[in-house]
Structures are given as structure tokens and as C-alpha cells.
């Protein structure tokens, strides 16, 4: 199980890296998805550009009520950074569900986001957080929302030559409760479904609610039907149960060896219920 030969570059700057990528090189970050595929020779890039160690992609900072996370920040750092644990606990909690210790130590936020595995964990949280994704190429920078970024199975808004350089998430306003609930496929640890919920109370009612779902279909999505069924309604079990029933509205569910489309759909409803309950209990 040996990769095909390739050229390997370690540019000192992001600009240099983007130049190589513009010429057709493939970015390598933590390599948690790419390297196994290369070993099986399912992927055979000719030129890898190691962007994991670029200081320009390794930072977590707060600016103007937003948290900016460099693409090369590892899942472990997302999971454990005090700034994120304190100010965006949903993202930190979600990171803690990815793979295992070793994978979280090495895999990166930007790598996972760019890979857009339909069963990856982050997309659910990023959808719920209405995250912004910063894309850069040699030609310049643009910012898209998570909803715009994740298009289809392994398909994103990234254009050739472009990489994810940063993810921007909001500083969670006080009184918001968040939760990520995942039904994991026990062999691989990927999500069969994963549901990220953010809940604000408005007195005894639901205020703003965001729900992001991964694993159910070809790409992550905002479960807007669930959200609409909650906002302004009493924060009760019945409301949650009724709203969660809409988790899969308008979505064509995946089917594989581990879960048929019907079962996945049912799980999406169950885990949406759990995520909402959990988020509600964490909201002040």
C-alpha cells in the first residue's frame, strides 16, 4: 500500500504556496483524507504543497466579535483552544467528535472543510454557525458562507487554484445553547448523521434557532424547516419533537451498507431532537 511518486514542496509563504497550486499542485494539510487515498492509489497527485506548517494558516484569534481560525489549525486545537471552548463551544464540541485522538492531532480544519466529505462533522456546525469560509488563490481572496461553500458530494465552491485559508465563526452570544449530536458509523467513525443546533431562548419561547445537518445527504445543509417550526414557539418537548420531524424535509437521503435512506432519515429526526434538547438545556 504505497503511494505513487510525487513532488513535494514546502513553501515558506502562503503566496508561494498559492503560486504552486495555481500551477496545478495539490495542497496537503493534515493529510487525513488524502494520504489513505494515495496509499490505495485512488489518488495520485503529481505535486503536493505542504501548507500545514505555514504560519499564515496557523492562528486562532478574535476580531470584532468573530473568531478567525487559520485553515491549518488541527482538530485537537479547535477542540481544546480556550478561546474556542469559551466563545464558540459548538465548533470545539464538534471537533471532539472527529475520528480519534491521532486523527484530531494531525487533521486540520481547512483540510476537512475543503475535502467536503458528506459525512464529515464540521459542516453541520459551520452551517449552524453561519460560518464564513475564506478562499484564496494567487488571484485574490473571497469569502463565502458555509451554505454557499458546500455544494454537493465532495463538491465545494472552491475554484481550481483556490484553497481554504480561514474559517470565521461568530463569538457565541450569551444565552445561546449549542450542541452537536452524532450517530457514528462504528467502523469508520464517520457520521451516519450529525446534527448541530444553536438555540436562543426568548422568554419561555424559542428565539433564534439554527440547525445544521451532515451525513444525511450528499452535502451538509441548514434544516430551515426545523428552525421555522421552532422560532417563537414554546420551548417544550412537543415543539421540539414536532419541529425535528422536518429535519429531512426536501432532502434525498443517502443509502449505504450502514444505513438505508429511510433509517438515516429517521435518525436525522432523532438526532435533531437530541441536539435541540441538549442545546436548549445549555441555553440560559
Amino acid at each position, binding site marked *: 500500500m*504505497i503511494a505513487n511518486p510525487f513532488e513535494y514542496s514546502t513553501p515558506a509563504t502562503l503566496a508561494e504556496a498559492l503560486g504552486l497550486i495555481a500551477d496545478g499542485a495539490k495542497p496537503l494539510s493534515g493529510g487525513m483524507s488524502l494520504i489513505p487515498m494515495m496509499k490505495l492509489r485512488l489518488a495520485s497527485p503529481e505535486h503536493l504543497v505542504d501548507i500545514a506548517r505555514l504560519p499564515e494558516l496557523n492562528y486562532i484569534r478574535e476580531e470584532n466579535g468573530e473568531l478567525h481560525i487559520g485553515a491549518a489549525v488541527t482538530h485537537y486545537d479547535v477542540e481544546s483552544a480556550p478561546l474556542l471552548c469559551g466563545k464558540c463551544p459548538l465548533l470545539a464540541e464538534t471537533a471532539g467528535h472527529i475520528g480519534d485522538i491521532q486523527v484530531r492531532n494531525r487533521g486540520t480544519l481547512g483540510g476537512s472543510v475543503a475535502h467536503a466529505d458528506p459525512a464529515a462533522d464540521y459542516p453541520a456546525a459551520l452551517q449552524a454557525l453561519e460560518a464564513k469560509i475564506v478562499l484564496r488563490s494567487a488571484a485574490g481572496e473571497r469569502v463565502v458562507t458555509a451554505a454557499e461553500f458546500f455544494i454537493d458530494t465532495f463538491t465545494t465552491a472552491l475554484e481550481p487554484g483556490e484553497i481554504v485559508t480561514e474559517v470565521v465563526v461568530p463569538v457565541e452570544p450569551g444565552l445561546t445553547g449549542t450542541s452537536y449530536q452524532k450517530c457514528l458509523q462504528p*467502523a469508520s467513525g464517520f457520521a451516519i448523521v450529525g446534527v448541530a443546533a444553536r438555540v436562543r431562548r426568548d422568554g419561555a419561547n424559542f428565539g433564534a434557532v439554527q440547525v445544521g445537518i451532515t451525513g444525511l445527504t450528499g452535502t451538509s445543509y441548514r434544516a430551515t424547516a426545523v428552525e421555522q417550526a421552532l422560532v417563537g414557539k414554546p420551548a417544550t418537548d412537543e415543539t421540539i419533537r414536532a419541529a425535528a420531524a422536518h429535519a429531512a424535509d426536501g432532502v434525498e437521503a443517502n443509502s449505504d451498507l*450502514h444505513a438505508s435512506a429511510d*433509517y438515516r432519515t*429517521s435518525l436525522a429526526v432523532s438526532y435533531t431532537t437530541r441536539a435541540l434538547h441538549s442545546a436548549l438545556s445549555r441555553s440560559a
Partner: protein
Amino acid sequence: MSTTFAPSTTKLEKLVGKRLRRREDPRLITGTATYVEDVKLPDMHHAVIVRSPHGAADIRSIDISKAKALPGVVAVFTGADIVGVGTVPCGASLPGLRRPDHHILAQDRVYLVGHPVAVVVATDRYIAADGADLVEVEYDIKQAVTDPEKALAPGAPAVHSQWPDNVAFTFHQNGGDIDAAFAEAEVVVKQRITSQRLVPNAMETRGVVADWKTNDRSLTLYTSTQIPHLARTLLAGMLGIEENRFRLIAPEVGGGFGSKLNVYSEEALTAWVSMKIGKPVKWIESRRENFMVTIHGRGHVDYFEIAAKRDGTILGLKLKLIQDLGAFHQLLTPVIPTLSVLMMPGLYNFRNIQAEVVGTFTNCVPTDAYRGAGRPEATHGIERMVDILAAELGMDPAEIRFKNFVRPDQFPFPTATGLNYDSGDYANTFQKALDTIDYHGLRKQQAEARAAGRLMGIGISTYGEICAMGPSVATPAGGWESATVKFEPSGKVTVLTGTSPHGQGQETSFAQLTADELGVPIDDIVVLHGDTSIVQYGIGTFGSRNTAVGGAALFYALQEIKEKLKKFGAAMLKAEEVELGDGVCLNPKTGESVTVQEIAGAAYRGVVIPPGMDPGMVVTKFWEPANFTYPFGAHIIVSEVDAETGDIEIKRYVAVDDIGNQLNPLLVDGQLHGGAAQGLGQALWEQGVYDDNGQLVTGEFMDYTMPRARMMPWIESSHTCTPSPVNPLGAKGVGEAGTIGSTPAMVNSVVDALSPLGVRHIDMPLTPEKIWKLTNGRNA
């Protein structure tokens, strides 16, 4: 010469029965052990095998020119080159068995995904992999068949064209009067029960290093095997080389579970390539190859019928067993379902059986011995059937078991399948398990849970097994075992066992036994195994036989060397009668003594050689057991099912096992825990799934669910002890007990949980989706 079975009384602390930490561990925890992949020889070359991506296809052409042209590639061989190499052996001797030629490289057709088609040899493993990618094979794809019942249906594609019915053999076993039993029956229950294909997945994949020395005509082969001597004999035959110029070494072996109780194409192929190129050659199996071409386990479709009286008395059992054999026979492939048949009666006192086995070819990798080998399938079947009968009769599953157990006064108990159970007290062991888990309290809790709409289950398995393989009449290559005990002139002791432990810990437990018997410090004892140039011929490690057969052989060797020590000691002490104990030979009349170490030294120096004795202090013993042993036990699992998601939570797991006497209970615990993990793996998670074209769709850890730490419950393990009379240690064997006992307990628990919904049976694995379908995802 008389030997004594009674333990010698000494004032030294006895080590047998102590929870000693293992002597093999220092090398393993420091990363300094040598597995096959760690073997590095000068000028070693590397082999990578090109394999079929198709389940059934004719080979139209193979183009090796590009591969050969790659710098660093030394040779490429295909099926056309391997003239004169024997086929992969099968040790079964069933009448009328159809044996397809199993060549080490495909000839003109491939029969399964992974079938070896060519081998690329290079100076470097990376280059060999590149070369393999350049071999171009054109296939003419044929229709495959992967489901054994579909394979038996009229008009199914023929796996081997010469046998269009896909039947490799049929095997019948009848005992008692089955027609009378069914005529007398007040109730008959029937159930189709499958036992899905499992992938053994030893953490170390297979691997081979072959070193042919042309001038000596000698071969040294390092291979990850459980049977070094048998493998040498069989490979020597395939390769046409002399056994006495063939040294086979099983170095550190990273788990086997039966999957390395075999002789594989790649072992012969790597050796043959080394002979061809005159250089050492290494082949290491990838995990993907391990999934594709190392044997699988289980693979049954069973139709059971049980006849009983209304009071729960079982009268008889019928079984039609369809065994998915795969495309070829590996070493024991056809034998395994016959073991299932032998085990059919379980622990129960009925004497009428009728069994039919249909061995079926499919375009899949062969099935063969995987931990338990035939017995888990049978035990799962009978334990499920007993529960189904109890449900039919409205009886408690514990009560129906008590009613049918073989009683202690019936031993030795001849079964309807021709076995002779050695010893046991099944009711006692079961009662202990029930008491440990508070069975009656649990049933009350269950009633409350059900009233509250919760799905709680209590699953019982009272299992028996056939272990300590076994008498030679029942074991294809001989069922005896061997041991050598030798004092070195310095007084240190070396034990050579014919078993081939690979994790079981006999370097420790055999040293415990030796230390106790000889009265020498355990640190002075070394236990060696797995090298045919060092160790006398042996059979190997499988069928829970290391301690009960290999340990017994060692015990007899120890008795014999003790006699020799006494003779030499008496001569040295000029005494007529001496006593041997605590490492000292004592003249009780004078109080004079010599140590065993002094005796050994003297025996080598020839200081005194008693009349009729030979110098030196070495004894080799080959020991043939008169019977199998029959461990048994009771496993009880409490579970709760989440009706909404189908998730199963294991609340408690109590196991009471009777494996006879134990040399080292710490190691026994380890065997039981590991066995239980594999048994739960079958019940809940693992399945080798082929699609209709022969693709193994659970062909990597991505999709094949291995038990992980977070999935395993805490196992509360305890024991009863009825020593086996079959061997002097009273040991029965423990390697497979956990695997056999756990599976039906888990399935029975979940079926019990779902019984209020009318569920009687669920086929394994009990995936959450299957459960969810049965609960309709209803909210409890």
C-alpha cells in the same frame, strides 16, 4: 517407569494457579520483538502480488512487459511459470469430496476477488508495488455467485464448470431415532438461522520471508503461522524440497484466531520466487489483501427443527447446514461444518439427531477455522433454538435449560453425535451465573421496564465446546503434542513445546508448570517454540489445545525427567531410595542431598551414569490424548434497546466458565475477554458482505466493524472447576470459550428485549437498522 500425577509436595511457593505477569511481555512492550515484517536479510527482495479484481473471469491475456522494464524489478511471474509447484493442500478426508485444483497463481481463470494472477519481485517494496501496477491483465468477466443458497439453486452460475451444482460434498450424521423423536413430539419449532461470514483480522496480517540457499539446497522460511511443523511438511511437498533442508520459523506471530492455521499460496509462492531468483524474498500482506484472501470464518445457513414435549423436554434435533465454502478448499475448509454437527446437542440430554451438511462452492474466499471453528455456529443454533422453544412453550429460558441439562451422574456422557463428554456439572455453573447476576431480580426489573414501555432483555447462553484438539483419529494431521525438557549443563532449563503460542502466553504458563515440577526458579527456565530446527516435531496451536494437549505433553516429559533426575541423584548419593522435591534430591536415610542442577551437570559430565541410563538430561515426550475435553459455561447478558434508533446498550455481562484447572488465571481472563469481544463482534457488528459480482464490500476497516474499546461492555468473569480427567493437568482449554459463549447470549438478550413485539429470531449481526425495522422506530 512409573510416573505420578499427584503434585509433589514442596515448601517452595507453587506458581501454577498464580496470576503471574507474562515473561514474553518485556520484548513486546518495548517494541523489540521480531515479527515477520521485522526480518531483514542481506540482499532481500520484495514481492507484490497482482490480484484479480473480479469474482469470476477468464484470463484473456497478461502483459508483464511494462512491469519487467521498470528499473528495480527483477522478475515477474505468472501462472504459466509455476510448473511443477503443487496445489494448495486440503487436509479433509470426507468421502466424495470434490477438490478443485488450487494453484498458487491463477491459470486461465480467476475464481474470486483477490485471486493471485502474477507476482512482481523488485529490490524495494515501493518499486515492487509500482511494478505490480504496470502488469496489465485482460479479463473476460463471467457471472459470479456469492450466496450459498443462490449457488445451490438450479441454473446458478457454476463456480467450477466441472461441477455445475456447486456442491463440494454432502455429509450426514444421524444418531438415535429421529423419526421416533418427531413422532413423539408434542411441539416442533423450526427456524432458519444464519451465521454470517466473519473476517478474522489478526492485527498482524500474514507475511513471509523466504531465503533459499542454492548451494545448500536449503530453505529458511519465516512465516506468520500457528502450525510451523505442519506448514513445513506441506510446503515441502508443494515445492518438492526436502523437509530436512527446510527450516520454518514462526517468529513473533501477531494473532491468528485460526486464520494462520493454514497453508497459503503466498507461502509457497514466496519460497518458490526465492528459489527462482536465488535471493531472499519478503512478501507482506496488506490489510486489504488480508480481507480478500486470508480465510474467513463461519458462513452458514442453517435450518433447525427441534422436537419437544410440552413440559420442555427436548426429544430431538434436525439440522440442514449449508456451508459457504468459498471457491477453494483451504487446509480444513470442509472439516469445519462437521465440527458444527458434532457440537449440535450442546449441553442437553437428548439422543436423537439428524444432520445434513451441504458444502457449497461460491466465488468468495474460502471459509476455514476461525476462533471456535464450527462450534460457535452450532452453539448459536442450539442456544437460539432452546430459547425459541421456551418462547413457544411460554417457559422461562433458564427453566428449560435446567430441565434438559446432562446431569453430573451421567458423565462420561455419550452424545448422539458420537462424542463422549468428559466431565461437568452444568446446572451448578449455570446456577452460579444466575446468582451472580440476580436473575430473578432481573426478571422483576424487566417486568417493570416493560410496563414502562422500555425494551429490556436478558439473554442466556449455556454453551459447551469441544476442545483440546484432539485425538489423532479426529484430527487430520494428528492430534497429539510434543514437549522436550532439557537441563543445560549449567542447570538452566529449556523447554521446547510443539505448540506454537502467539499471544496465549505459554512461555509463562509452561514455565510455571516446569518450575513447580522441577523445583527450579522460574527465571532459570526458557520456553522455546516455533522453529522447526530447534523444536521437535509438533502439531501447533489451535482448538484450545496448547495447555490441555501441549501442557499435558510437557507434564509427562517433566515426570520422565524427574525420574531420570532421581536415578542419577540416587547414584550420586549412593542411595537406594531418594526423594525428589523442591529442586533437591534427598537421601531420606542420611539426609544427604544434591540439587537438580548438580545432578544435571553431573549427568552431562558423565560423572556417574547409573546402569541402563544414558548421559545428559534431556527428555522428549510425544503425548496422544484419549479424548477431547469439553469446557462449558454460562454467559448472561442484560441489554436495553432504544426503540427509536435501534441502538443496543449492554447493561451487564456475566460469564461463568468451567475450563477445568487453570495454570495462570490472569491469562485465562485475557483469553475470555478477547473471545467475548470476537463473539460480540459476530452478534452485533461484524459481517463479511459480498455483492453479487464477488466484491467484498466490507473489505476494509472502513466498513467492516471491528469491536473497539468504547463498544465493549465490562465483562464480569468467574469460574467453576470440574477438572478434566482426559489429561493430568485437569485442564480443558479456554482459547475459544468466550467466542462460543458470548454470541448467543447477546442475540438471546436482544430477542428477549423485543419479544413483547412478537420477535422470535433476528439474524446476526444485530445492526441498529435491523432492530429499528423491528421496532418501527416507535418511541417507547
